[in-house]
């Protein structure tokens, strides 16, 4: 149930800090029902792209549109009902419980009819999906990094928006939870959500995303269907390491296997 037109798109997004260009005329779009991965090496501008799309970064050039309306047209609450943003890390200096934090995701809907009950249900549901219900009443600052990260994801899910921007949702997570989180992103996309996820792990990106944006030094070097964008020919020069495609023993999509520099040198 992918829509035809992108619900969120950025055109010619450029972010500069002092003289340094962190993002260079990047254009991306994501449609409803689509899971879009953003990949690239350290410092390629992945988080900057997400911040540009979310309105957190000041744009030197370019515009972000949601439903063909510029971001600046929206008031804060209207935007919060359209789009949720999951930051890379959330520092919280006070002892709110994990459930308190997830419930904060319902803030944009406060005042709606039936919200107190509906919000409580969705809060619990978001926590069970992210496997965080067991420590619902524990204080957020006392949770481990991975636990905090999943609680934050639950908060973002509870916000119940058709557009989701998530920055490295799998960082700090163990293997099972990495897959759980991306599986969840997949499912939300199949319910019609447009999801943009910054991902560090190329194989997770290849396995779960519909399409990908590959960033290198602030510029988009490839974008489109993940099978094509995440190809060794694209990735090797960007990451400075050789890759080979290897059929997955179980799945249709192939795996990207990196080759150590010594091996690729011998072959070269």
């Amino acid at each position, binding site marked *: 149930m992918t829509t035809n037109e992108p619900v969120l798109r950025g055109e010619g997004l450029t972010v500069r800090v002092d003289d340094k260009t962190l993002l260079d005329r990047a254009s991306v779009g994501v449609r409803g029902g689509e899971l879009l991965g953003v990949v690239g090496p350290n410092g390629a501008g992945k988080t900057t792209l997400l911040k540009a799309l*979310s*309105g*957190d970064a*000041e744009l030197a050039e370019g515009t972000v549109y949601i439903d063909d309306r510029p971001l600046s047209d929206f*008031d*804060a609450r209207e*935007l*919060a*009902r359209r789009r*949720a*943003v999951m*930051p890379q890390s*959330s*520092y*919280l*200096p*006070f*002892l*709110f*419980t994990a*459930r*308190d*934090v997830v419930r*904060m*995701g319902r*803030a*944009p*809907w*406060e005042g709606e*009819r*039936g*919200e107190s009950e*509906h919000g409580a*249900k*969705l809060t*619990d*549901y*978001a*926590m*069970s*999906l992210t496997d965080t*219900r*067991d420590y*619902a*009443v524990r*204080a*957020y*600052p*006392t949770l481990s990094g991975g636990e905090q990260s999943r609680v934050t994801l639950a908060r973002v*899910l*509870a*916000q*119940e*928006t*058709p557009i989701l921007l998530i920055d490295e949702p799998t960082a700090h997570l163990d293997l099972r939870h990495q897959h759980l989180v991306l599986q969840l992103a997949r*499912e*939300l996309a199949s*319910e*019609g*959500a447009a999801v943009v996820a910054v991902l560090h792990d190329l194989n997770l990106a290849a396995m779960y995303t519909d399409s990908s944006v590959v960033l290198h030094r602030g510029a988009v070097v490839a974008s489109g269907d993940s099978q094509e964008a995440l190809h060794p020919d694209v990735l090797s020069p960007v990451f400075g390491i050789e890759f080979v495609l290897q059929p997955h023993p179980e799945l249709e999509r192939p795996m990207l296997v990196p080759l150590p520099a010594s091996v690729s040198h011998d072959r070269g």
Partner: protein
Amino acid sequence: MTTGPLAQLRERRPSAPPTVTALPRWRMPFSWTVLTALFLALVLANLGLGAFDVGVERIIAILLGKLGIDIGVQYTSAEEAVVWVIRVPRMILAALVGAGLGVSGAALQGLFRNPLADPSLIGVSSGAAFAVALSVLLGLTSGAVFIQPLVAFVGGLVLTLGIYAFSRSAGRVQMATMLLVGIAVNALLASAISFILSLSDDGALRDIVYWILGSLGGSVWDYAVTAGPLILIAIFVLVRQAGALNLLTLGDAEARHLGVRVERSQFIIVTAAALATGAGVAVAGVVGFVGLVAPHLVRLVVGPDHRSLIPASAVSGAILVLGADLGARTIFAPAELPLGVVTAVIGTPVFLYLIHRARRSLAMGGW
């Protein structure tokens, strides 16, 4: 009801019923009962104790007498004058000054996401102190009873808004920047006040130091009815910002993504905190530690949610200042201790105890 991707997913793939264990239900009502009882006891103590003591039933008879209700308890006109003319306005001011400081402290700790923030950080107190010191030095405060409070109030508010404006860039105010600017300006003004003190003659020196150390000794009804409403309005405004403050503890960007008009909320919170503190400082001088300690005291019992923390901080701030002023009046009677000294003497051990108690959760990173 909203239906988005999550609600749809829940239709298709429901989860097992939640096993969430709730926090004990008795805690909130219990905490509020204790706070209210303490507050009322201190109100009566402040009205009854002093150079001569007035019994509880007589206090009630005097207060009801003012409403035209006679409950048949006899009291002398001297008792009536002491309670109604001297102690009631002083008690009201003590409670309101404390409530204003407590609420401002709670709101600023949330806004700055820093449990060590207190109202003096945004420059209200030092701005007020500097303005008063300067006006005393220039001989501007003689005569009218309202000049000094007005000078203090305006000085505090102007400095806070100045710090706020200085910390603004590209339409957004970095709270960390504001914190640093506040610290720098406070240090500068402390030196400036010392310099003014060094230029002052004995009389002016006494006036300035007495004012800086804080006192409710000059409380009159006129102060209570002017500063009081200002403080109450500021408290009301901050209570209404409680929801936004909860979200702001997650961070400015996070709050914005959750629908908070961040810049607007920041401005409202800073201004209301400056108003509550400034009006208090204007009539009572600099009263330290209450803004820092009052929120921590109640955070332990009502939790970090600003919707209960802000009202509870109003009560705990009132309790602290009522207690401190009672001590200031009675410990070395008939001499009065400076209020600011008493709050510091009470506040410091309380704060150290709180830190000691919280050290485990502090090590994990939160209050």
